């Protein structure tokens, strides 16, 4: 298939197709709305008959993430997907993945909480994703797609980053992007890595100690505090490197902007509409969309912020990322938050009203 395959599909379906195409070796998941189409699409596509990708419906999210942990130990490209309550259940496993420095992909198509909450879209898992969630000093490389196309593109990117740094990566999406259908160009097929490739690229992988090499042992346990501190310092150094090299963002109409909206994912899409309405009314506003939520584009926001009259964060939560934006500009610029909760998506017009009040 030489020509680009343009098709229409849901964000969740795009995740599944992209996984098959990017040489993913295994998916382990458990149904939960609004992301069940990921597992459903994989089951329908039967990749085990074509690429050899393994697909398992686990008995719980706890089991899913631990299957991912087991699979990640073998150096394979393995992933799971879930939605907020399920991702909460996975936090222990995510901490273990980070502690054992294993590459893996977790997709969160998030919904409104707390608790069982609602199945409607939400960005209320920002804190959980970028501030920990599980126990211990760790970070998750976090990509926030704003379109179905990015849902497809970020699967391979997340794996690349996860393997480059031996760290779990998260795609933090939401029910809107997961359920929405859009035009998407699926990535070309990339073969799964051979066992020889894995053995050479991941010399740490537990695939059997072929050729009489020393055993590989994957654990996050180290009872000697002095040793554990050294491990932690090494991991922290890795995080600093990621913060230096892997910040990604999109700038939109910031050149002449006097006001800046900072928003990610679906809130960024809404922001673009807000900007077109606001500019018609004479408000010069632009958008900074963090694509990586961790590492966070703090330096870029500080730079842009220094020439803004005000910053508005638009979030589908009670105001989480706003804290990181305030930290980035060190309170030198007024930073305001607007958002809706409980699965309600802010309407462009109501955000324009907030902007108008800021300008006054």
């Amino acid at each position, binding site marked *: 298939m030489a020509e680009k395959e343009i098709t229409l599909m849901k964000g969740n379906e795009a995740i599944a197709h992209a996984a098959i195409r990017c040489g993913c070796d295994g998916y382990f998941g458990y149904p939960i709305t609004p992301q069940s189409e990921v597992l459903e699409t994989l089951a329908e596509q039967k990749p085990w008959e074509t690429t050899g990708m393994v697909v398992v419906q686990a008995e719980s999210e706890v089991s899913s993430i631990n299957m991912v942990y087991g699979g990640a130990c073998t150096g394979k490209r393995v992933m799971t997907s879930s939605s907020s309550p399920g991702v909460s259940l996975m936090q222990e496993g995510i901490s273990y993945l980070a502690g054992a420095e294993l590459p893996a992909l977790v997709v969160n198509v998030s919904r409104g909480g707390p608790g069982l909450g609602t199945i409607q879209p939400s960005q209320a898992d920002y804190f959980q994703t970028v501030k920990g969630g599980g126990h211990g000093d760790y970070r998750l490389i976090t990509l926030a797609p704003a379109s179905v196309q990015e849902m497809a593109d970020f699967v391979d990117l997340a794996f690349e980053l996860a393997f480059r740094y031996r760290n779990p990566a998260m795609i933090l999406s939401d029910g809107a992007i997961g359920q*929405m259908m*859009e035009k998407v160009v699926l990535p070309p097929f990339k073969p799964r890595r051979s066992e020889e490739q894995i053995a050479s690229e991941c010399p740490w992988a537990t695939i059997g100690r072929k050729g009489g090499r020393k055993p590989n042992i994957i654990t996050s346990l180290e009872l000697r505090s002095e040793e554990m501190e050294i491990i932690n310092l090494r991991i922290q150094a890795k995080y600093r490197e990621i913060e230096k090299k892997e910040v990604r963002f999109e700038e939109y109409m910031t050149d002449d902007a006097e006001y800046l909206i900072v928003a990610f994912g679906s809130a960024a899409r809404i922001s673009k509409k807000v900007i077109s309405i606001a500019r018609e009314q004479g408000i010069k506003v632009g958008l900074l969309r963090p694509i990586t939520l961790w590492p966070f584009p703090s330096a870029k926001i500080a730079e842009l912020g220094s020439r803004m009259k005000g910053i508005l964060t638009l979030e589908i939560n009670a105001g989480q990322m706003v804290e990181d934006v305030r930290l980035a500009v060190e309170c030198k610029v007024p930073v305001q938050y607007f958002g809706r909760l409980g699965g309600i998506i802010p309407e*462009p017009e109501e955000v324009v009203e907030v902007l108008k009040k800021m300008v006054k």
Partner: protein
Amino acid sequence: MTHEIIISGFGGQGVLSMGKILAYSGLMEGKEVTWMPAYGPEQRGGTANVTVIVSDEPVSSPILSSYDVAIILNQPSLDKFEPKVKKGGILIYDGNGINVPPQRKDINVYRIDAMDTAAKLNMIKVFNMMILGGLMKVRPVVTIESVLKALRKTLPERHHHLIPMNEEAIRKGMEIIVKEN
């Protein structure tokens, strides 16, 4: 040109699939499209709606609070979305089950009795395509050729024999839609 469309009715009326065919037809014409359902556990009988945007430019927000076109298939949907049609916009409704018809004078109101017609002609299965035909008559968002192309692309091979019936329904819809104001 951008078309911001809401389609709303009962679950089981083919609201989501009509939206999907519309979006897919836009795709066939090389346009930018989004299809955003109000998803949930609603099954047959509950309410269902979908926002479809077909545009020559990249689509910003897939979620809207006002629409160029509202396609309304039941009373609760009419009550909810009539106020959200942009001034000068279009409201298309099926008269079946509507007790309080649209009131606004600043929008173009069209009525299409597709449910009755489909029942009479034994075409209930393609009732939603009749509605789509009505839309295409009053606002040619996509061409009939693109719709047929989209159907060929999205329907499984074993259902391709149903395409002529779909085409007939679209043409019927174009005939029976009437302007009310």
